[in-house]
């Protein structure tokens, strides 16, 4: 039974399965209760009576990670749960309120999507016989006046163009006849509502869903990893997987394999997980595991941290370890990284909300993360010889790496600040220990951040083996022929701004213009061209040889600036607000967007061109006719200085940043 989609419909779960080439839907009646624990049942007896009468509430024992609680099963939905907490003045604990019913059904029955019969959920490979097509609609979904040309890619490529009605019915009938299991479609979530309106206007039936039903995921703005994100309302078809390849983080990072693996691990439909962030993925995975282990999933996080003295808190509130890098150019540098360090620490140190203060009892979090970590270590190994595992490995990396930082615990159902602090405490010890071992073995330590150390010295494989043996954690190594650590404005080394040449001639970059998301294409292209040239230099000495070429690129770019197009100057930013307290260019861009009649929401990405920086003037990229040359020259020079620093340092090794001449004069 290979489950490709699931949905809650008519008091039950629709499971869409594919077997022997045929897709079938099976309906399972299912209306599970939520659980409630009253802090003071006597004071709430009226409410309990009412719940028994109206929602067949029955007494039960609630198993939580912290132990058992007396409570009630209530056969009702989230709305009732919210009324209960409001009427009880929030003096209740609710569980299993916001667990998706299809996920809960599968977890309770020990089944999961995207897998054949009796297979292991943590098996690294995904076998499937899904029929996949790609639909590309040319044009911009927000602004195109009519339905432009459409392209359908299956065994061959078909184009549909002409009058809107013709295109629409041709597209619809093609989808119906192909009857694919998966539709990959850039900007699907923006096009779908539009296609739906067009179909209604023309009396056509949209063929995306296999039973005519669609779920809608509402548009919303939310914070994710310190960034405001925006999600368009999505129209998700039943029985068929529709992936917005442009907006799906999971698809971008992991491809179809990544989406299917995420669905299998979290027990949710691929349709859903393709629209998730890694943070939502890992917490969905934890939820599935909790249900499987018969542990109630809390609705609210209401347990605050323990009371502490200020000095104790200060000692704990430190974050990851940072070493101060010395800015400059270094050759033959090894980067050593701990694989999925934070979750590895959770497993190794048995860190879990309920083990704080009780380290002897087996923890929930370590138990559920262990198989995920083991799987990651396998995919990491497998992808070295088989690139087919890249997608799965990438998704596992994201699920494991990013989600145990601060934001991770804050929103996680099974997160707790003391766990987060325990992780960072241990990670600092590990990094210092690794530094000690490296120095003892004759390496010189250049820089280190959180789970990563840069060292110079011979026989890194010996170092790796010894650190792995002593820490019992996995390491990855990467060799740099040369690496540049950039300075901050005050001349001291920046933690996160560096670039260096890998043995294959590519240049790995962090924190410089070419890597930043808001860098205009014109400037990104210049820096990329320079980095490609520098990639030819296998040694620091060879860098000298490319200097003239690199400086030539800078001069050429300056000369081309006046005739560049507005498109190339577009700055792309995710906006976090619509009202700005101070005058700023971003605020001006938001205003200009609105004046042009385009709708904007926090978290949305806007693309604008600065037309007059001094007067805070900007235009949406499609409307910009000019750009502020002086402003862009400033950006260009900044990007150039990041590159030129490498040569300056190379030629003047004893140079102190503050004593160096201004680079633009070069």
């Amino acid at each position, binding site marked *: 039974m290979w489950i490709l989609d699931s949905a809650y419909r008519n008091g039950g779960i629709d499971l869409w399965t594919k077997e022997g080439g045929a897709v079938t839907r099976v309906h399972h009646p299912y209306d599970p209760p939520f659980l409630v624990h009253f802090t003071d049942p006597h004071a709430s007896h009226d409410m309990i009576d009412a719940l028994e009468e109206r929602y067949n509430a029955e007494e039960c024992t609630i198993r939580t990670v912290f132990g058992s609680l007396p409570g009630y099963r209530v056969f009702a939905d989230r709305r009732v749960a919210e009324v209960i907490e409001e009427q009880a003045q929030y003096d209740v604990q609710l569980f299993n309120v916001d667990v998706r019913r299809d996920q809960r059904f599968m977890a309770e029955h020990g089944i999961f999507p995207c897998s054949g019969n009796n297979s292991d959920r943590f098996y690294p490979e995904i076998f499937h016989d899904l029929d996949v097509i790609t639909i590309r609609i040319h044009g911009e979904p927000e602004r195109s006046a009519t339905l432009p040309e459409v392209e359908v890619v299956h065994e061959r490529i078909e184009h549909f163009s002409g009058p809107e009605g013709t295109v629409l019915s041709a597209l619809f009938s093609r989808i119906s006849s192909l009857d694919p299991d998966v539709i990959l479609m850039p900007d699907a979530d923006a096009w779908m509502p539009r296609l739906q309106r067009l179909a209604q206007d023309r009396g056509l039936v949209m063929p995306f869903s296999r039973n005519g039903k669609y779920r809608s995921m509402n548009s919303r703005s939310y914070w994710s990893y*310190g960034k405001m994100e925006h999600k368009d309302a999505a129209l998700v078809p039943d029985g068929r997987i529709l992936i917005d390849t442009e907006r799906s983080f999971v698809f971008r990072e992991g491809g179809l394999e990544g989406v299917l693996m995420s669905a299998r691990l979290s027990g949710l439909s691929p349709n859903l997980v393709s629209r998730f962030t890694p943070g939502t993925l890992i917490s969905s995975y934890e939820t599935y595991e909790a249900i499987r282990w018969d542990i109630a999933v809390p609705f609210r996080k209401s347990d605050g941290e323990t009371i502490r003295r200020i*000095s104790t*808190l*200060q*000692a704990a*509130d*430190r*974050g990851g*370890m*940072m*070493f*101060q890098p010395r800015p400059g150019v270094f050759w033959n540098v090894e980067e050593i990284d701990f694989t999925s360090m934070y979750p590895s620490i959770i497993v190794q140190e048995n860190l879990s909300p309920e083990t704080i203060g009780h380290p002897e009892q087996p923890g929930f979090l370590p138990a559920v993360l262990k198989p995920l970590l083991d799987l990651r270590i396998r995919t990491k190994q497998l992808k070295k010889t088989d690139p087919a595992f890249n997608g799965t490995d990438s998704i596992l990396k994201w699920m494991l790496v990013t989600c145990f*930082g*601060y*934001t991770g615990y804050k929103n996680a159902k099974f997160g707790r600040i003391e766990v987060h602090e325990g992780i960072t405490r241990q990670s*600092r010890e590990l990094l*210092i220990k690794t530094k000690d071992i490296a120095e003892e073995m004759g390496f010189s330590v250049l820089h280190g951040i959180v789970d990563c150390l840069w060292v110079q010295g011979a026989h890194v494989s010996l170092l790796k083996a010894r650190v792995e043996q002593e820490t019992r954690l996995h390491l990855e190594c990467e060799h740099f022929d040369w690496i540049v650590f950039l300075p901050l404005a*005050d001349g*001291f080394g920046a*933690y996160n701004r560096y670039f260096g040449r890998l043995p294959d001639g590519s240049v790995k970059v962090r924190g410089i213009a070419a890597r930043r998301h808001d860098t205009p294409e014109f400037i990104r292209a210049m820096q990329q061209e320079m980095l490609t040239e520098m990639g030819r230099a296998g040694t620091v000495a060879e860098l000298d040889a490319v200097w003239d070429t690199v400086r030539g690129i800078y001069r050429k770019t300056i000369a081309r600036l006046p005739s560049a197009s507005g498109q190339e100057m577009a700055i792309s930013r995710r906006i976090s607000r619509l009202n700005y307290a101070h005058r700023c260019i971003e605020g001006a861009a938001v205003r200009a967007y609105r004046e042009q009649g385009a709708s904007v929401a926090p978290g949305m990405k806007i693309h604008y061109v600065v037309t007059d920086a001094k007067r805070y003037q900007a235009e949406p990229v499609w409307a910009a006719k000019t750009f502020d040359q002086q402003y862009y020259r400033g950006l260009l020079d900044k990007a150039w200085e990041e590159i030129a620093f490498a040569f300056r340092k190379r030629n003047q090794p004893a140079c102190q940043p503050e004593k160096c001449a201004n680079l633009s004069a070069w």
Partner: protein
Amino acid sequence: MMGRTFVSPRLGVKDVADRWARSARALRKEDQKYGKELADLAKEHSSEAFVACNDPLEAATFSVLVEILKRQERLNTERNDDVDP
């Protein structure tokens, strides 16, 4: 910064160093460079100091003293070299 209840190490020491640099301006002309240098030395090991120091001032002092001890040792070595080549 989100996720931290206390000021980040780097920012904390930078504030101390900035204050020292400003104070240096009030020193006699010939002493000013030492004041400014102290401000730089404070930042030299600020990140590492925060493994166990709670206070930016404590971290700044730690960083400065480490560098001063290094210099002292270098000086002693040089002196010994002079006497006993």
